[in-house]
């Protein structure tokens, strides 16, 4: 547990919660990133501009991090490209099939006590843990 960062993580989580709350209370929208992105990749007339604005904000926030918190990009672990491609395909396909990701289900849905989001979040944390366990097992045995 020597890597634990409870305070920065808690404060970061509060910022995420405030941002998602602003989307809800001001615009009436769920801040689910996979859904917001999918709506831009397959645009519906009149329901696209706010998504582009949110994603532009996300990217500008990302640029700001380079200056105010460069350590945010100390990735620590970068998987080989074939693994990242497989992971990206699974994340893209899976979040559409399951109607959400860590933000839409994990934050917004869980807070609303949505049964679908509670089940989805339990599922992706469990299968994520299983994937990490199996990946480490394969890496150790091939060493």
């Amino acid at each position: 547990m020597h890597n634990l960062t409870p305070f920065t993580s808690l404060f970061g989580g509060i910022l995420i919660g405030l941002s998602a709350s602003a989307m809800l209370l001001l615009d009436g929208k769920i801040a689910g990133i996979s859904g917001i992105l999918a709506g831009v990749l397959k645009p519906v007339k009149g329901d696209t501009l706010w998504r582009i604005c949110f994603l532009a904000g996300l990217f500008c926030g990302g640029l700001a991090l380079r200056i105010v918190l460069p350590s945010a990009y100390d990735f620590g672990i970068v998987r080989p490209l074939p693994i990242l491609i497989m992971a990206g395909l699974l994340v893209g396909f899976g979040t559409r099939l399951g109607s959400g990701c860590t933000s839409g289900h994990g934050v917004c849905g869980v807070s609303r006590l949505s049964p679908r989001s509670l089940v989805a979040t339990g599922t992706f944390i469990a299968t994520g843990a299983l994937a990490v366990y199996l990946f480490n097992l394969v890496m150790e045995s091939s060493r």
Partner: protein
Amino acid sequence: MKALLASFASGLVFALGLGLSGMTRPIKVIGFLDFFGAWDASLAFVMLGAITVYFVAYRWCRVLPSPLLATDFALPERRDLDAKLILGSTLFGVGWGLGGFCPGPALTSLASGAFPVFVFVAAMGFGMYLHSWVSGLGATATNWAIVSSGSAQDA
């Protein structure tokens, strides 16, 4: 216009939150998912912070007649559990554990300029296209089933 500005500002704060919390660092994400190894509980604090704030906001929104800058709330209403939800979340979790990125942090990290992030995001976008293509096929198959069952009833 104000609503769009609010979207932009929310995205910006969201990215700062992701960066500060550690979500943009696969080592923190994979460390959190490594329950059977050197578990890093930090991400539980991220969820605690985000969920606590949003829980209050959601209670508040229930008593508002409409959002402050828009006419209607666009909230999901489904409560049923189906196979797509479970299978989709299963696949997403595996991808999340393998790469250490979920969609928000991946898009935010594009700003780092790191090549592997571009590769991940491109694959993620392709995965989304793949889903809409496959579900298009599924819809066609369902239409056929409806047509054929309809004709069976006619007979």
